[in-house]
């Protein structure tokens, strides 16, 4: 009997440090100012206020924890469609310029057809093609730079939100799971975004320029090379995302069981303390439940912040992609095939950039979801 009390007191002493930390989980004391700054400088603060009714992460977190905020997906879809329509209207002048130049290029390619490939028309066509490329590359450049900026902002947000979730999970008694997964979750996601920004996005730009040059000549001798590079970029991206989620899932297999065993053991020890045992055990349980709520709230807030950050850029990139596809479809019967291929190349590259942004949000949501599932729901 004495040795049991001795072991119990020792365990209580060990747990007392974590009980103290658990009692101090207070979302209002968490510092999310850098994330608020990112939202402000990107202009996503207004989007967040329209969609969630909150102007800062702190407010959003309070609304989520108190149940005042409910996600209305129809509102998000409506906002996306409105933004898409607005951006398409912005690019109407670009469409008219492209149509005018493409029709003019038809005259030059007509000269080539009538008088042979070596005719003066080929120089004229190259000149019109050059003007078209300059015009279209300016809009593509906007899409490219915006993608890189948004990926950088996503990285900043994740570097604050994910460790905050992990810290709360530790305070909630999931020390082993949280410790094992937090580094992978935060560091792995940051690395993935760095790869997307520095390697994949730059690769997309490079292959786009090579393809544009390739289609100047009707023979298109670099098609196999550009096809290979695109395949490597697409498959590489999918493999990296899949590997990250696989590692997150694998990491989450063993640790939760160990955390649960530790929790059960400590709960049993606390309950065995005379007089106050069940009250103490109950208090610990409610504090842990509170921590889980805060952790899940931070995860949900993080996903909403990323959605707000990405809503406008995704709408813009979708508008640009749609315009390139519409122009290619509309001009295909009328103009030279090289102009149509130019538009198709740019549309494909814009779709890949769009995939990077959407992929980043999905991977973040997946990682947060796995973390929440494995550190107590």
């Amino acid at each position: 009997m004495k040795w049991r009390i001795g072991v119990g007191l020792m365990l209580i002493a060990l747990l007392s440090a974590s009980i103290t930390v658990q009692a101090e989980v207070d979302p209002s004391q968490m510092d999310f100012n850098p994330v608020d700054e990112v939202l402000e400088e990107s202009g996503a603060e207004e989007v967040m206020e329209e969609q969630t009714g909150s102007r800062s992460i702190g407010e959003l977190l309070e609304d989520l924890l108190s149940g005042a905020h409910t996600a209305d997906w129809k509102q998000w879809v409506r906002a996306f469609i409105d933004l898409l329509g607005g951006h398409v209207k912005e690019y109407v002048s670009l469409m008219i310029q492209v149509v005018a130049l493409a029709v003019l290029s038809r005259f030059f390619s007509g000269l080539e057809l009538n008088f042979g490939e070596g005719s003066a028309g080929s120089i004229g066509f190259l000149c019109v093609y050059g003007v078209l490329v300059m015009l279209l590359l300016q809009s593509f450049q906007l899409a490219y730079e915006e993608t890189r900026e948004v990926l950088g902002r996503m990285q900043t947000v994740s570097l604050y939100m994910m460790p905050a979730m992990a810290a709360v999970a530790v305070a909630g008694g999931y020390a082993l799971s949280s410790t094992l997964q937090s580094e992978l979750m935060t560091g792995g996601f940051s690395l993935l975004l760095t790869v997307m920004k520095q390697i994949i996005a730059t690769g997309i730009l490079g292959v786009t320029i090579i393809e544009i040059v390739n289609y100047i000549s009707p023979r298109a001798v670099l098609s196999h090379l550009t096809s290979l590079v695109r395949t490597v970029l697409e498959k590489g991206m999918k493999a990296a995302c899949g590997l990250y989620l696989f590692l997150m899932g694998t990491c989450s297999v063993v640790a939760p069981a160990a955390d649960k065993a530790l929790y059960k053991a400590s709960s049993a020890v606390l309950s065995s303390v005379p007089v106050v045992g069940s009250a103490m055990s109950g208090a610990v349980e409610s504090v842990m439940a509170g921590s889980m709520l805060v952790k899940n709230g931070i995860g949900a807030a993080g996903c909403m912040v990323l959605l707000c950050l990405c809503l406008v850029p995704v709408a813009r990139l979708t508008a640009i992609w749609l315009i390139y596809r519409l122009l290619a479809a509309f001009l295909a019967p009328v103009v030279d095939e090289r102009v149509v291929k130019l538009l198709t190349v740019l549309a494909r590259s814009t779709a890949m950039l769009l995939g990077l942004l959407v992929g980043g949000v999905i991977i973040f949501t997946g990682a947060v979801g796995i973390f929440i599932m494995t550190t107590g729901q």
Partner: protein
Amino acid sequence: MELFQLIAVGITGAILIVTVKQHKPEIALALALVIGVLLLFMASGFLETILNTLRDMADQAGLSSGQWQLLIKLLVAGYVIEFGSEICKDAGQQALAAKLQMGGRLIMAGLALPVFKSLLTLITELLT
């Protein structure tokens, strides 16, 4: 109506040239040149309408007028060079026609150089 006039002038001119060529080949060549210029003048009205419409579209959309004027110059130059080259070929001077084409392409390349330079600058800025 203008289409039938064009066809009528073209066919009549071809018959005349074939007839005159048997007796006076040098006059036939001059006749071919005159009829060619006449046909171009008859078609130029439609070309002007098309180009004016495209220019209005480009102006409304905000395309640079300097670039547009350059492209129109290149188009006119292209047609004139091909016209001259075909006249030379009609006269049996293939080598002359080829030289005329080469000279024309060099002039057009010179006119188009600022566009290629701007494009190269834009690509370099994008990649760096």
